[in-house]
């Protein structure tokens, strides 16, 4: 069943070489420390750059949906420097200290949110051999780490000592905990299909066709459910109740300013990317090129495209899909959001899980 694929862009030899070279000149502990430092810097850099790209993309895409042209002044015709300029602005802004806030939690909350986001970010399979956190229960780790973000939101809302933030936090708490279920179940569905929880292994298993094709109907349904639930997890419209600017001005981060607000903002966009990245990994093959069993020539051509391009291409495709949804629909109400989850998505995802199990057991998947 496993199909061999040409592996031009595996970076494992490079990383192994770096590791060995470093080990030859210094003790292994130091070498690992240095490597971790370098990787950490790279992750943070990528995190920041991707955030800028995503914000720019969001502004341009949303403008196009709204018959506008979007940012077009700063940095030439396309407004390319608009977002970097905004970043600089936010860095120079004053960080407000509230008098009656719970100081420790108030300061801690943005870091929790960004921590959760970076942890999950590190699990994404960028390329063959380029996953940063690799463990055999990778997907479980992603689910666990992303839950820390909810804690950050709850703390931010509670510690600000404001009524708007409180309502926003309680909303997001109720909502995110519900939607974790659907996410968990759909992820389980795909784990069922792949037979492993190791993210890299899940990608390898898609060498003979992406999961969405292999798992056909249940996989497509699971994909849709995952997108909806993931959208809710990322706190984006039509599920952006925690912020709901028309109702709660800015929801849980109303009382934050400067870079603390920036953290929430950044995490929100990166969560969008992470949700899309996980969707791309589970359903669309991660960095795996498009392979159609039997068409060896076609597969060989596809293999020439580097894995990172595949991964980013798929992820940004899903990001666009989510933006399309966000910029089309009005927001739901809190009880409707919960009804949607408990009465529609959860039963459906359970059914899909059962169907998928049956398909796998009876060998009905490709």
């Amino acid at each position, binding site marked *: 069943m496993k199909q061999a694929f040409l592996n031009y862009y595996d970076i494992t030899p490079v990383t192994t070489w770096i590791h060995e070279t470093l080990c030859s000149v210094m003790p292994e502990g130091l070498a690992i420390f240095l490597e971790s430092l370098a990787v950490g810097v790279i992750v943070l850099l990528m995190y920041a750059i991707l955030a800028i790209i995503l914000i720019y993309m969001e502004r341009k895409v949303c403008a196009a949906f709204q*018959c506008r042209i979007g940012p077009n002044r700063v940095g030439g015709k396309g407004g390319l420097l608009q977002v970097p300029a905004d970043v600089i602005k936010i860095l120079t802004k004053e960080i407000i200290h509230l008098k009656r806030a719970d100081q420790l939690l108030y300061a801690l909350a943005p870091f929790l949110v960004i921590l959760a986001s970076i942890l999950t970010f590190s699990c994404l399979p960028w390329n063959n051999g380029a996953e940063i956190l690799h463990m055999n229960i990778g997907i479980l780790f992603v689910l666990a780490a992303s839950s820390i973000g909810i804690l950050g939101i709850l703390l931010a809302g509670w510690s600000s000592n404001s009524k708007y933030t409180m309502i926003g936090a309680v909303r997001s708490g109720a909502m995110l905990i519900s939607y974790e279920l659907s996410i968990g179940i759909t992820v389980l569905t795909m784990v069922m299909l792949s037979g492993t929880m190791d993210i890299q292994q899940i990608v390898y298993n898609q060498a003979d066709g992406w999961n969405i094709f292999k798992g056909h109907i249940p996989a497509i349904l699971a994909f849709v459910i995952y997108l909806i639930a993931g959208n809710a997890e990322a706190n984006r*419209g*039509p599920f952006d109740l925690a912020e709901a600017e028309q109702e709660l001005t800015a929801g849980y981060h109303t009382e934050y300013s400067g870079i603390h607000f920036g953290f929430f903002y950044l995490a929100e966009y990166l969560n969008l990317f992470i949700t899309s990245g996980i969707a791309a990994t589970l359903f669309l093959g991660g960095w795996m090129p498009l392979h159609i069993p039997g068409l060896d020539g076609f597969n060989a051509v596809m293999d020439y495209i580097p894995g990172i391009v595949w991964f980013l291409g798929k992820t940004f495709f899903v990001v666009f899909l989510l933006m399309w949804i966000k*910029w089309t629909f*009005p*927001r739901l109400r*809190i009880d409707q959001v919960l009804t949607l989850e408990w009465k529609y998505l959860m039963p459906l995802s359970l059914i899909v899980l059962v169907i998928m199990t049956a398909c796998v057991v009876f060998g009905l998947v490709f």
Partner: protein
Amino acid sequence: MDIKEKISAIYPDASFSEQGDLLAIIPAEHFREVAEKLRYDNEDPMDYLRDIVGMDWGESLGTIYYLESSRSYNRIALKTFTTDRDNAYLPSVCDLWKTAEIKEREVFDFFGIRFLGNPDMRRLYLRENWIGFPLRKDYDMNSNPLDMENEENADITDEYYLNPDGTIADKKNIIFNQKDFVVNIGPQHPSTHGVLRMRTSLDGETINKIDPICGYIHRGIEKMNESLTYPQTLALTDRLDYLSAHQNRHALCMCIEKAAGIEISERAQYIRTIMDELQRIDSHLLFYSCLVMDMGGLTPFFYGFREREMILDIFEETTGGRLIQNYNMIGGVQADIHPTFQNKVKAFIKHLRSVIKDYHDIFTDNVIAINRLKGIGILSKEDAISLGTTGGTGRASGWSNDVRKHHPYALYDKVDFKEIVYNEGDSFARYMVRMDEIMESCHIIEQLIDNIPEGEFKVKTKPILRIPEGTYSSAVESSRGEFGVFLESKGDKVPYRLHYRSTGLPLVHAMDTVCRGNKIADLIAIGGSLDFVIPDIDR
């Protein structure tokens, strides 16, 4: 039975004044009786209180109540007064017409008349520590220097009532308890459409009570009018409800023309009617945009603005203004229509008919929108009439109240149009009324646009206009309800008192009734569907 005979039958000593509008003058001690009998009349109950106009006649203070029947659409005005200026008390009618609750507060705020039996006698627009009552003629303009102190609203209000022995006592009513979780929606809030503040008491996400606080954009337009000549007063009407600028000004022009006996030309009538309807489309497109945006859909918001821009361009071509057009004048309109006007209007209507499907596809038929609007914020017909929520809000509750139909003015008795009435009374019905009215307005314009007769667009008027003594009123159907002008003249070149019926005040007052028991997200959607404009409330 004639309304005059009816009042005489209830209270034989009632006197009538016919200088201008018919006015029944009833002393305060018999006023409750007359009001009650008129309100609960079997065949023709006067169940809609159009407005309460406070007045200072020098020797006496008083109020004029403008009533209308929701069955026969007959109108009558009742006048009552008190001569005790220092302790002015009048009986409250807020148990007969709910809208009196807030309108009596307005009269109290400006004239210092306390209403016996109204449970809430706070000031409405001015600060709680305001000295004096500004619309009284003996008010000292220097008595309230600019106060920059932060104002904390009291949670307790006064109620005055009559003891059986004839003495007046007062008691305290509690608006919000210490335990209530009160959230301030506004005055700076993205969805209150201006500087309105709603103190909202919540139970979790559910609304217990709303207490609207107005006056953040109060400019004292009614007071200013008392020192402006008649042509000058026109300049301020556009600034009330800026989305009904044409219609507001139309009402004032009509009132002054009626009082001064000026006949305007057929051509001007055509132009005014077309402009009114264009303004209505403009306003309803903005309503669509804002409602959708309040519910979190930012994309359809721009659709509405895209088409509205075209109307503004048409306005600007002819009137020279986009939002504040200054177009209607006493005796006609400011300038003749631009040569391209007719073609542009026709092209616009054609375009609008082709894109309106997009509006419905992206929002009206959307399952999220339907769930957010259907069955939410139901306002019953009785409540709608009692609260005086005119316009689309009332018509969505099944109350046929279109001034254009029942008291036609300009050319509305000559054109064929349907009055859109829905019976559900929920947010969705309020939304659909406006969407259907857009098409109905297009239909009206299409009947008129090609038939504008030749003639003068403005008749010559005297340079200094004096209006004969009397009480005059006129009303138009503005974009969001009945806009009324009430004018008291003493034969001067400036009005003695000029009062506007705010279309938004009853709507804001209705928020409490409509929103109770709904979620906080619905508060925003209901507010959007009621469609109020703050400068018109605060005046």
